């Protein structure tokens, strides 16, 4: 008699997507942030195409990282506040599937739109067209890893909502993703073989999918009695 709460992956994916699509405002903030900061770069640094395309790979990735970080905090905080996290913890099944469901919903709502929006910024930074596909591939894989690792930080800092602490916890863990992500775009821009860093990103994603839910379920149980 496993009730709906332990329905697992599909149930939580469906529910979180429904909730995210219901309040559209919440959805667009990280995307607006992504575009807005991209506009600031040429104003702050230099409009010349040569200068911009030199820093474009790293910059696109830093913007994607910050946009994900901005939105990851609300992954568990609403459930923690209204008590549905308590009901989730009581469900007999392992926490892994519901957690993966919620993170996939978060990725579909934040990560995927970022990836689809990134060509706009690539054009703003006069990135060569050949680098467009590798950039979107690296962002698609990378934002998933960012959501997974960010969810670990969100679960551990649940009792006290402070953006800075979450960033401090999660930033060091984001470094490898940032390195391989921007290296993929840089390799594509230089015409080198960009599959190698992309493969590393996929490996990081595989490791994150397996290990992060363990840390997150432990973090959620700890937060409940924090």
């Amino acid at each position: 008699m496993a009730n709906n709460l332990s329905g697992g992956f599909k149930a939580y994916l469906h529910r979180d997507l429904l909730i995210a699509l219901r309040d559209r405002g919440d959805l667009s903030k990280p995307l607006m942030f992504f575009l807005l900061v991209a506009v600031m770069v040429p104003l702050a640094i230099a409009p010349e195409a040569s200068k911009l395309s030199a820093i474009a790979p790293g910059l696109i990735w830093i913007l994607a990282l910050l946009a994900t970080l901005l939105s990851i905090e609300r992954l568990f905080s609403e459930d923690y506040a209204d008590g549905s996290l308590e009901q989730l913890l009581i469900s007999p099944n392992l926490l892994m599937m519901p957690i993966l469901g919620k993170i996939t919903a978060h990725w579909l709502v934040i990560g995927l739109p970022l990836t689809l929006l990134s060509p706009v910024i690539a054009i703003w930074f006069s990135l060569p067209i050949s680098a467009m596909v590798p950039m979107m591939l690296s962002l698609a894989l990378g934002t998933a890893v960012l959501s997974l690792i960010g969810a670990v930080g969100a679960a551990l800092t649940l009792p006290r909502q402070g953006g800075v602490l979450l960033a401090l916890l999660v930033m060091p863990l984001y470094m490898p993703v940032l390195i391989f992500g921007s290296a993929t775009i840089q390799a594509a821009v230089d015409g080198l073989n960009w599959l190698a860093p992309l493969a590393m990103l996929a490996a990081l994603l595989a490791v994150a999918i397996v290990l992060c839910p363990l840390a997150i379920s432990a973090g959620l149980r700890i937060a409940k009695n924090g």
Partner: protein
Amino acid sequence: MNFNLQWTWFHRLGSPRWFYQKTQRWLPWLAIATLALLVTGLVWGLAFAPPDAKQGNSFRIIYLHVPASVVALAGYYIMAISGAVGLIWRIKLSFMLMRSAAPIGAALTFIALVTGAIWGKPTWGAYWVWDARITSMLILLFLYFGVIALRHTYSNNEAADKAGAVLSLVGMVNVPIIYKSVDWWQTLHQPATIKFTGAPSMHPDMFAPLVVMIIGFYSFYSLALILFARAEILRREYRASWVRQLVTNQPAEK
């Protein structure tokens, strides 16, 4: 998962009282050993070892930089493992050891970073060089700050300990990934820089003081860890009768 082991020695090991009394006797010897090791290592390294052919005398900073970074990295693993032991067997003492290991590790990482930066000036002409070793050390410092800062999210000690243990375990998994990816990143951008820790290829009597210094730093780490842990035990076990009795009949004790 209250997976409680009946191995008596294992549980006796876990009782804060046994730890407090045992370390009471070890402390003086450990302090003397640490002092002796550090003094001999430093005097030997700074005064007697020959200077490096290329770098001249500024290479002597290696006797502080390398031991600090080695012990700082090992300290992170010690912290994560004692956190894991606390999580699995729910031994409060190992949580206390984890909590004490964090500030010591952060301080040693800070020493490694400062000495590395100062060393960079004479050799490369700039205080900060994005060398792979130094960059990874900087990320390790932020990992330490994360574990220390996490304490304040939780009101009760048990939850704070468990959260710290989970975070340091996540960090432990990530430390090798970070070090390897920073190395890979380094080959991408600056292939031809000298490697900092070219220890084995050094001249024997340059290398000998380094070994003495590394052992000295390890014993310093254990000395500081025991001191921090004892303070932590008194702070958290103040209700226990043995603590009250300890305080009443030796108020004058240092």
